[in-house]
């Protein structure tokens, strides 16, 4: 029995990680072939760095991910606080439903509807080419928002609701009480919302594809357009780099989480 479960686990691991391993290996392939490994080489990485359009797309992706996740985190945290303090139950339920729909909605529907809206509004204000960085930023903030709200809300529920009152009792205005007491105690939720928004924005393709214009390309869009012609090994190199950055991000956030848990456990002892 023990052997079977081990083999099973190993198989799961293989299916999950073999593709990535193959990709990483081939990103170091000296030859162009996808079937023969022609020796170790960094030439695809060099080529990647020399390709200015790819580097620009990378920059665009990062700027977009940072900006959209930050804005979504600020807006999402405020919305979560607002939803949390709603007194009427039906209003709360309505707000939560409105929050959930964009998450359940297929990306393609969100993408097309956002595009339509942007083009429509663009025409109203008389702009010929309304799609671009601005529309894409709005789109990314839109689909990031629910994830931030959903990661902040549970933290608000865990927070002792007397904390804000205690702060006010000690001389804080309600506004100060939020920053001095509530925000620190919901910070883990805010942070994980930020991380989630950042990674979602980083790898979004479908919605980005519909809401961007010809002047603004992100990495996923660029890679997709390249695969239409032929897949070159420098894409393996790029994907490997992205994979490694995501891995690093994951490790960092896990370490941070483990630390805060350790602190809390130490506190209990």
């Amino acid at each position, binding site marked *: 029995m023990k052997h079977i479960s081990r083999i099973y686990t190993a198989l799961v691991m293989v299916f999950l990680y073999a593709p990535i391993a193959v990709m990483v290996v081939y990103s170091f392939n000296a030859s162009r072939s996808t079937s023969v490994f022609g020796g170790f080489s960094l030439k695809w990485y060099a080529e990647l760095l020399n390709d200015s359009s790819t580097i620009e797309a990378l920059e665009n992706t990062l700027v977009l991910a940072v900006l959209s996740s930050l804005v979504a985190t600020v807006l999402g945290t405020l919305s979560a606080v607002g939803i949390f303090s709603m007194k009427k139950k039906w209003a709360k339920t309505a707000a939560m439903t409105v929050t959930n729909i964009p998450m359940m909605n297929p990306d393609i529907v969100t993408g097309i509807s956002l595009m339509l809206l942007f083009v429509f509004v663009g025409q109203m204000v008389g702009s010929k080419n309304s799609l671009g960085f601005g529309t894409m930023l709005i789109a990314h903030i839109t689909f990031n928002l629910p994830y931030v709200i959903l990661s902040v809300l549970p933290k608000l529920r865990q927070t*002792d609701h*007397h*904390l804000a*009152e*205690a*702060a*006010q*009792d*000690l*001389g*804080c*205005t*309600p506004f*100060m009480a939020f920053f*001095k*007491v509530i925000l*620190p*105690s919901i910070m883990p939720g805010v942070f994980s919302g930020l991380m989630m928004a950042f990674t979602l924005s980083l790898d979004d393709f479908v919605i980005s594809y519909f809401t961007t214009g010809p002047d603004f390309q992100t990495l996923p869009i660029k890679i997709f357009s390249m695969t239409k012609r032929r897949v070159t090994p420098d894409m393996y190199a790029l994907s490997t780099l992205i994979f490694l950055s995501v891995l690093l991000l994951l490790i960092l956030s896990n370490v941070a989480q483990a630390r805060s848990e350790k*602190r*809390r456990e*130490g*506190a*209990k*002892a």
Partner: protein
Amino acid sequence: MTNENIVELKNITVTFDGEKILDRINLAIKDKEFVTLLGPSGCGKTTTLRVIAGFVSPTEGDILFDGKAVNHLPPHKRQVNTIFQRYALFPHLNVFENIAFGLRVKKVPEAEIKKQVTDMLKLVNLSGYEKRNIAKLSGGQQQRVAIARAIINRPKVLLLDEPLAALDLKLRKDMQVELKNIQKSLGITFIFVTHDQEEALSMSDTVVVMNEGVIQQIGTPQDIYNEPKNAFVADFIGESNILDGVMKEDFLTSFSGREFTCLDSGFARNERVDIVVRPEDVDIVPEKDAMLLGEVTSVTFLGVHYEIIVDIGGFKWMIQTTDEQKVGDKVGLYIEPDAIHVMKKSKYSGMYGDYSTFSDEIEHLSDLEEDEN
């Protein structure tokens, strides 16, 4: 007359969703007084406290501090501090920073903060705990931090919302003494909320008994115990036998089928009244000297004394005695005139004070029902 009332509530009514939580509360609290709001859960005592702190605004009525209305003053501008039921310490700050919180908000200079917090830690016996994480403290220590955090701001009035409810019995007794000492040495007015009648009697200068959003009685602990105004107060504070009686004339009353001399007067001739006799005020005597005769139906040994239930003409009395009795014994009872307290009839008449269904379990069940209502 000089106005020495530091806090005054005038006709305070609070309504939530059409339900009256507080009904025309009138209360005057003197400077440096230790006032306790006492009542079962849901009686409105915590709401009263929150009205004073500014977290609940009254639907009607005025709150006065030093004679000035503060109805529209937000909590952070009021000269009061609160100790919350579960302390509400800030989990992301250590002991020092929790206590320093109020001073930092007021932008007190750093050196001054350090000095005051150190003094405060000494006062609450927590010197050396400055850097300690809040979650690493015991319940009693957290309680002390909460006290220090509030009184470092030198409030004129300290509001305490069941501050000892989370502590075990031994610690609670110690903290009662400690709180009383702090109150005396700092000369701060304390408004203390509790459902524990013993705590209220032992700590307060004035006790305010509340039920169903209405003040039932205001008085010294002795007044409340010895001269309860109605059946609710008599039953809630200590144990009471409450009987249906008639006031024949001044100093003469009748209940349980015979007449008794008493010390009460000022009632109408033959007015129907409620009679309170405390279990410890009934003496067990030989049958020939007895005023009432009854049969013992239950005996509980409580260490200091026995608690026995005696059936007298169908009404079950609770009597505390140091003599051992057996179930089925015939006993004679003797009641001194000063042990009889006569009360006007109220809406609580007949609801309390009969021990015919007495058992801890049933009492507990009826408590639960009250909570739900």
